[in-house]
């Protein structure tokens, strides 16, 4: 494997890790506040469809993004209603949301577009453009030189290759997702809201005693989760791919859930975990089988590796993943 191939794999690692990272941070907010969320997958899928549908109908990717966030937040509100207001089982609610999104997206897509449960392909302003950072080689330079971009990058020096291939040329949501990591860390560990959010996930009775609304904080956390899942879904349909196809989230919500456990519910670890799982996806996508020390590793093993790693972590053989203590428990105020 030469240097340029490695860079291309890293480039697609970042592109594939972005939806995982956004969803993982979404789950982090929710679960740190004590609300388990298996419905990440469904929210992402609903957001992917509504962002693609809106972007297609209006021609504006930003309106699409808003529609995606709105759809995801509507499902979040449902999850909040079931698990906070009516103190239902959070896991069952999440399962229901996943099925709801999986069925409704295809149903509505078929009713609106009659293309077998997908949206028409998005072009131009209905998609997020790749951004060329300053001093990086982009499509403009390629046009000026009269060469395809890949050739132009191949001729450049190694530093410029890294900069142009991996760091530059991503969509704005990728940079935004990366910014979300320090922002989440700051919000959780450096603000009053973050302290209360974490406390609600560990010991809601103590927060209640302090005169802070447990229900309010939990709803806020679930809402933030909705926004981030919405961004992830919109990224899938309007940046990573051009339009919605059925089941396009393809288990990413569950991988994000796995990454969240792998990261032990911490923001910076979440970045590491999602990049690792993104790398696994990128490698599985690019190579059909890989030889490691002469032993062929089947591509199915690469697909299953995130889940296997998560089970190993959960088993507590390699470090221990301790979830928020009040996770999954509805809070009943004492009278």
């Amino acid at each position: 494997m030469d240097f340029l191939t490695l860079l291309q794999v890293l480039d697609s690692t970042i592109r594939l890790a972005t939806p995982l990272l956004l969803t993982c941070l979404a789950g982090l907010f929710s679960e740190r506040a004590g609300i388990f969320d298996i419905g990440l997958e469904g929210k992402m899928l609903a957001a992917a469809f509504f962002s693609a549908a809106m972007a297609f109908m209006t021609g504006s990717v930003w309106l699409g993004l808003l529609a995606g966030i709105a759809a995801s937040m509507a499902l979040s509100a449902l999850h909040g209603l079931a698990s906070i207001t009516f103190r239902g089982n959070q896991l069952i609610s999440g399962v229901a949301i996943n099925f709801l999104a999986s069925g409704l997206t295809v149903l509505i897509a078929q009713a609106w577009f009659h293309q077998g449960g997908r949206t028409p392909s998005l072009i131009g302003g209905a998609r997020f453009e790749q951004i060329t950072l300053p001093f990086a080689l982009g499509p403009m330079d390629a046009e000026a030189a009269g060469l395809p971009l890949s050739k132009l990058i191949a001729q450049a020096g190694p530093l410029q290759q890294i900069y142009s291939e991996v760091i530059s040329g991503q969509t704005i949501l990728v940079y935004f997702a990366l910014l979300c990591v320090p922002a989440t860390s700051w919000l959780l560990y450096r603000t009053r809201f973050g302290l209360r959010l974490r406390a609600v996930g560990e010991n809601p009775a103590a927060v209640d005693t302090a005169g802070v609304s447990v229900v309010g904080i939990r709803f806020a956390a679930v809402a933030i989760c909705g926004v981030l899942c919405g961004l992830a879904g919109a990224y899938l349909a309007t940046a990573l791919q051009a339009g919605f196809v059925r089941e396009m989230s393809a288990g990413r919500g569950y991988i994000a859930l796995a990454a969240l456990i792998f990261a032990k519910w911490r923001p910076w670890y979440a970045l590491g975990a999602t990049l690792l799982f993104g790398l696994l996806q990128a490698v599985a996508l690019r190579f059909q089988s890989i030889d490691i020390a002469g032993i062929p590793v089947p591509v199915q093993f690469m697909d299953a590796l995130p889940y296997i790693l998560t089970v190993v972590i959960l088993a507590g053989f390699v470090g221990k993943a301790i979830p928020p203590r009040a996770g999954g428990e509805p809070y009943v105020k004492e009278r």
Partner: protein
Amino acid sequence: MQKMPQWADVILVPLISLILAGALSALVILAIGESPYEAVKIMVQGAFGTTNGWGYTLYYATSFIFTGLAVAVAFHAAMFNIGGEGQAMIGGLGAALVCLFVPFPHWTFALLGGFGAAMLFGAAWAFIPAYLQAKRGSHIVITTIMFNFIAAAVLNYLLVNVLRPTGGMDPATAKFPEPTHLPTLHDMLLPLGIQFSKSAPANVSLIMALLACVFVWLLIWRTRLGYEIRALGHSESGAIYAGISAPKVAIISMLISGALAGGMAINNVMGEAERLVMNSVEGAGFIGIAVALMGRNHPFGVLLAAILFGFLYQGGAELALWTSIPSELIVVIQALVILFTGALDNMVRMPLERLFLSLRRTEP
């Protein structure tokens, strides 16, 4: 003090949830520009109008009984086995291996052998998550979800690289030999003089599913183990105080759950496809969740709920055939049933409890 009479808890609450789910589904059908009345007519005609329709309805119901019972048994021990899908996949692998490599003389032996292998494989697949939950404290829901994906990868690898016959194009095993083919309802009802559709896939597994219902009822309410499972489900600390080994009972109940989920392979793998294909389970493991919730974890309730979902699946397929409504409508109905009977249970229950309490106050 019970807040409302038992009949209300067992019948009224699920019924209202079902009506809510049905009403919302009707709104969905209206919203996509079709008539709910026509849709229900096509579904009922398609599922119950002919013996062929019955055959498909009962075929689906058979699978859902197994997965519904699997989820119900785990629920009794206060565990949420979301891994029925993976356990059924691996159970299918067990049944396929036995059918392919053991020379059975007659279908009765094949049925028992295949059932045993499927249950063994399903239970084995449930064992690791169960062990990790009981001994290492990792959450069963997360591990069983992970094991669903791992099962899909394992099956994909085996079907593509190992079990596929030479020259086979699709990822599937060879056709099982003739003696392992199970009799369909057509074959079974013909000696009784009843003409049943020949092409419908319902088969002898239906009887095994009914037997499984009886077995689960006996297990949960008539044995010591069942008592321990229910005790653990009600209160873990109470069960431990009563001298029950919580990890042991938790693991055993998950093994039974996995075995039941795996056991459905006799229906879809041996009874219908007669070979192992990639997507043989077709989401039945997840439908088990809705079936168990709907049936209030009681075998008889599971049976009724499984027939209801069998009707929805067969009716939904007919709907997709005759109208422009895609079969994904069933997934939406399934989601609404899970939502109302599972997650929003209190939304239905709280007003009912208040109603019954106020009725009781005025009585004496």
